[in-house]
């Protein structure tokens, strides 16, 4: 049953990615002030969408798991954590690459940047907990506890970094600053890119989920036959 979903997502991802790449590199006009480097924007913002989507899926899956434990929801949370970490890492890297030529610095401690960095650390901690926790339902429960606490903390972290920047004001930067002034063609490109990356995200999560289920199945079989 899951084979058609997987194939569908793979075909959709490939098709959308070709369209997005065409739009980003050939169709959309070059931004006047920032130049060609601004095209990173069409990857950076969709990656960020995926990063936060992963977080939300972990939160929901963790709550469902704690209320009604099942290996499926645990696998969903685990898969989105891995893909989410990948997206967060790429988001941070693309942000750094964009920041240097445009604002002259690799990194500024703006609230968004700081929150994203902390988010990255929570993702890493989550996966480390999964790696070091006892196998089976106990490890899954531990991970779910962290999944809930981590998500609840994100708005508090954002608020605290925003208050912190009020105390140490530096130049105001961030993708948010120019979103309102986007050309319609840029807006279309961005929108399609976001959809593409959400589909890509879903495809990777589905693949990882299947792999994880297969791992569990193999383990069960090894256990069953090894003991005989």
């Amino acid at each position, binding site marked *: 049953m899951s084979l058609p979903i997987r194939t569908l997502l793979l075909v959709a991802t490939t098709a959308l990615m070709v369209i997005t790449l065409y739009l980003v590199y050939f169709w959309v006009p070059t931004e006047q002030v920032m130049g060609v480097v601004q095209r990173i924007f069409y990857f950076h913002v969709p990656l960020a969408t995926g990063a936060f989507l992963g977080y939300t899926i972990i939160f929901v899956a963790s709550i469902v798991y*704690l209320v009604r434990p099942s290996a499926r929801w645990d696998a969903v949370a685990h898969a989105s954590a891995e893909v989410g970490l990948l997206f967060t890492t790429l988001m941070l890297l693309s942000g750094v690459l964009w920041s240097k030529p445009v604002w002259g610095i690799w990194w500024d401690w703006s609230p968004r940047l700081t929150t994203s960095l*902390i988010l990255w*650390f*929570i993702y*890493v*901690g989550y996966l*480390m*907990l999964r790696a*070091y*926790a*006892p196998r089976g339902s*106990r490890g899954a*429960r*531990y991970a*779910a*506890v*962290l999944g*809930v*606490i*981590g998500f*609840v*903390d994100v708005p*508090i*972290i954002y*608020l*605290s*970094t925003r*208050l*912190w920047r009020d*105390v140490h004001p530096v130049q105001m930067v961030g993708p948010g600053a120019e979103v309102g002034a986007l050309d319609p063609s840029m807006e279309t490109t961005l929108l399609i890119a976001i959809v593409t990356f959400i589909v890509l995200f879903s495809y990777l999560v589905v693949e990882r989920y299947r792999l994880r289920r297969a791992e569990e199945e193999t383990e069960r079989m090894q256990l069953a036959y090894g003991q005989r």
Partner: protein
Amino acid sequence: MKAYIRAVFAILWKDFLLEIRAKEVVTPVLVFALLVAITFNFVFGTQPALVAVVASGTLWVSFTFAGVLGLGRAFALEKERGGLDGLTLTPVSRDALYLGKLLSAFLFMLAVEVVMLPVISILFDLPLVLPALWLVVVLATLGFAAVGTVFSALAASTRAREVLLPVLFFPIVLPVIIAAVESTSAILRGDGWSQYARWVGLTAAFDAVFIVVSAALFQFTLGE
């Protein structure tokens, strides 16, 4: 309700007795906290102007590092001697268990800080024994203990728990650390309440959110 409160205090009393007799948490953690503070002294030098700038950072780095060390001990002790299994067998609700462990972690950290503040005052020649600062210390320590108790229970049953606890703990309590450092700096500069009220408010909100969330989640860190 009365039985609930009695259960919470029974757990607190148990940890207190253990500490009085074995002395395995407060004393070593206090020595460690002092060493962290003194190391900072060598890193930044002793110029009075510089000390005034880095004082609040020094204070909070030593408190958080010492805090995470103490939190790790709290559940490692329970684990080593099978105490946690005994505790989970008692007919006490899981959130009463959490509150008891939270209170003992909070009071142990506070005990270390009560000694640290005057000692750092003397060593760095700063007026740190101020009522406003105590409020900040109490609220921040409560936040550390609220999250730390759950993470300590999680980490105690994992491999590499000494490393895992700080890796989980620091990103989550970052808002408390920022708030504590900013309000301590403001207090040391002699700023009024209005300058740091929002930080105190943020810490109080963090405490409230995470005491409730952690009390609800603590049950999942126990048992097989």
